[in-house]
């Protein structure tokens, strides 16, 4: 999936020579200290950043779940999700299913701006489930979720893997699924000091 990937942000090399692959049905866990480039790697794979060296290939359809909501705050959740459903060619039933999988079906009529931190995170996940993408790029998907919601997230991830999807997640909170590979990013300065 990636070949000798390097990324430079703000004049600083975040990572280089990165090499890993995930097959359909596999999940990868991205770990490492803050600021090491986990989010940048996810954004890069999502096509939002250009690699400074190396190359990568991803499935055509991908979904990014980062810290930004990308839903209209003043609209009820269902209508806010409807915009993305329309772009992704989904219907009302799919919206309802995505809301049910993230435990938000009882909030369908509530404007997004009234949501709590955990509910906003679940709304981000609902948007991701709705996208019907092969590759899910998840940046701290369990942030702000309570124990039950983390379980629920685990079930959704498991189901995606069962459908032949691919997951790459950066998370400090243990996620209740079995990861096939663990990709640990280390700060480059320290790495070079060790050598």
């Amino acid at each position: 999936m990636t070949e000798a990937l390097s990324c430079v942000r703000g004049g600083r090399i975040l990572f280089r020579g990165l090499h890993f692959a995930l097959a359909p049905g596999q999940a990868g866990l991205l770990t490492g200290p803050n600021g090491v480039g986990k989010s940048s790697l996810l954004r890069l794979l999502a096509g939002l950043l250009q690699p400074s060296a190396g190359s990568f290939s991803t499935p055509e359809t991908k979904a990014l779940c980062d810290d930004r909501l990308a839903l209209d705050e003043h609209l009820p959740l269902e209508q806010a999700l409807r915009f993305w459903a329309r772009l992704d060619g989904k219907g009302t039933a799919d919206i309802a299913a995505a809301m049910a999988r993230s435990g938000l079906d009882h909030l369908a009529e509530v404007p997004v701006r009234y949501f709590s931190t955990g509910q906003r995170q679940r709304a981000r996940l609902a948007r991701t489930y709705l996208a019907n993408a092969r590759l899910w790029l998840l940046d701290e998907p369990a942030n702000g979720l309570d124990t039950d919601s983390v379980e629920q997230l685990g079930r959704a991830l498991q189901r995606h893997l069962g459908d032949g999807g691919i997951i790459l997640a950066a998370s400090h909170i243990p996620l209740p699924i079995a990861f096939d590979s663990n990709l640990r990013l280390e700060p480059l300065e320290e790495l070079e000091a060790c050598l």
Partner: protein
Amino acid sequence: MIRAIAAMIWRDVRQSYASGGTWLPVIFYLSAATLFPFAVGPDRELLLRTGGGILWIAALLATLLPLDRLIQPDLENGVYDQLIVRGFSDELIAAARLVSHWLSFGPPLLFAAFLASGLMGLEGEALVTLLASLAIATPALAGLAVMIAALTAGLKGAGALGGLLLVPLAIPLLIFGAGSLSAQGGSALLFLAAISLLLVAITPFAAGAALSAVRE
């Protein structure tokens, strides 16, 4: 693809009309037109001679009002990121924004200009020329607004900077737009149309480049 673009435009237009943001330039435009006769006095000749020009300047200033709502909120909220992840290009996003902004800016402004020209005593041919020149220019004004909003998105004091950027870029529009109101104005309208076409044509590329630069 067409459906997706229509959904993007529809979302922006609905948001603009629902939030009342559309009517702000209209109200501003009408207040400027109301103040002018108070300032220069009720001399009908003077109002007839200068009214068209004043309405043109008011249109330029009205362009500035929605600048901070055009790009910044969606950029901050990650909407553009999500569109890029889905494979839409920056240029397409900018083009859709241009169309949606014009739909919520152009027609209301023309309506306001029609009302305001009554306050200036403009009628007959002068009124038709004014409305025609504004109708030709509003796509360009919308394009300038989208370009400047994309360029200044994420900057501190973007509003003031936007004003500074718009004024020089809008001068050709003002010259030919207001010029078309004079007696020999026919060719000015054609020049206005040419400039308007040029600005509309470069908007998707200029604003798209700004959107992709801000991501890095």
